[in-house]
């Protein structure tokens, strides 16, 4: 447990000192969302229909963008290799990294989302659902995306590749996340979709670290 706290402390310090690591995804989230009214239509009626999907896609892309750097710095300065060599299990390292990363990106995205939903004229009744769905969905996106980040960390051009690897795996999360907000916007029950989101989250939280660990070993040791 002490080791886990040490990981949390280290990751938090790193994020505090590298502010752009968590500010950039948030800025990206805002800017991308603003593009949709400009490109499609400024009308409230149109925007209200597409708002759930737009916010979800923007959050998904912002999360994906933030993942490229998840293991990069540790890989380049060799600390990742030390973690693999060390006496401790890799699981606390992975969970600690993912938790801090989620707090700095996904959690903040979920808090920022109501602001965007107002700009996009999303019905007020869907606001709560939007925040809950993002709180449940973004950790899943980070956990699954970390597999892609771990697989590509040793490659020179990992950035585009990670998108190709991870986006297909994101589709169920996107479907249920956006569907829950759509249902809420139409005044229907949305607990089913949220339950499925939670189920996918728990499943990926249990299984993904094994894949992340294996991928990191491949990337570092070859």
């Amino acid at each position, binding site marked *: 447990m002490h080791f886990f706290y040490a990981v949390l402390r280290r990751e938090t310090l790193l994020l505090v000192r590298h502010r752009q690591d968590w500010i950039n995804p948030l800025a990206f989230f805002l800017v991308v969302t603003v593009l949709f009214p400009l490109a499609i239509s400024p009308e409230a009626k149109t925007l209200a229909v597409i708002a759930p999907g737009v916010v979800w896609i923007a959050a998904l892309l912002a999360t994906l963008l933030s993942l490229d750097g998840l293991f990069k710095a540790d890989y380049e300065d060799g600390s990742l290799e030390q973690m693999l060599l060390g006496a401790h299990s890799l699981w606390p390292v992975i969970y600690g990294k993912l938790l801090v990363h989620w707090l700095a990106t996904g959690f903040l995205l979920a808090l920022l989302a109501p602001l965007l939903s107002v700009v996009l004229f999303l019905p007020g009744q869907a606001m709560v659902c939007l925040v809950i769905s993002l709180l449940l969905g973004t950790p899943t996106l980070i956990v699954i995306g970390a597999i892609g980040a771990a697989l590509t960390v040793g490659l020179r051009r990992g950035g585009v590749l990670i998108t*190709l*690897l991870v986006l*297909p795996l994101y589709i169920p999360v996107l479907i249920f996340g956006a569907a829950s907000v759509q249902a809420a916007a139409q005044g229907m029950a949305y607990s089913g979709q949220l339950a499925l989101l939670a189920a996918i989250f728990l499943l990926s939280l249990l299984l993904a670290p094994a*894949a992340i660990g294996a991928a990191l070993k491949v*990337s570092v040791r*070859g």
Partner: protein
Amino acid sequence: MKFKLPLWFYQLASPKWFYELSGKLLPGFGWAALLLLTVGTVWGLAFAPPDYQQGNSFRIIYIHVPGAILAQSCYMLMAVAGLVGLVWKIKMAHVVAKCCAPIGASMAVLALTTGAIWGKPTWGAWWVWDARLTSMLILLFLYLGVIALTEAYENEASGDKAAAVLALVGVVNIPIIKYSVEWWNTLHQPATFKLTEKPAMPPEMWQPLLVMILGFYCFFAAALLSRARTEVLTRERRAAWVVTLVEEGG
């Protein structure tokens, strides 16, 4: 007690042994594929009765369904081979997994293309955002991801392992493909063949389909073996037996 698998399993790990065995099996699969595909195509296109609603346009099913089935089974084989390669550190398993990916991807493309051609006369659109179609498209993307990842690594062994991890992660997608049909069930008809039930089609229609599916499997086996043989020779080019083989003009 030590866990032991049958001897042939360990023998498969030897590239030389695999090369010799596949050389013997390849013509069998090749001829079987040719025979079954010819019989199935002629039977399905010329002799099977037309559908009472769709007329003759339904005949594309004899290409479409085997392609779709194979695209999915090929992914399973790729993932299983990847797992075997990761767990038992068998080089040959990675060769098989690597050779599965392009075949599976082309089968997915075949299923999507024939589906689009079939969709135009029956649904009136080349493409609909139906769960089944979308899942097949995702499967194609997963294949592309695996291929791209394998190619991205300069070190062959790392690329193999990375692709195996990705393939295993993607297996999560296969049940989603299956369940999505039942959850969203929009336009696409449910699966043609189920192991537990009798097919809804009359026998004159599904018998040629069965022949075609078997033919596709034989074709897949032949394509996989010949790809794997080439890959083995490339990878083992410095091994003594390959050098001898080439010098003897084999």
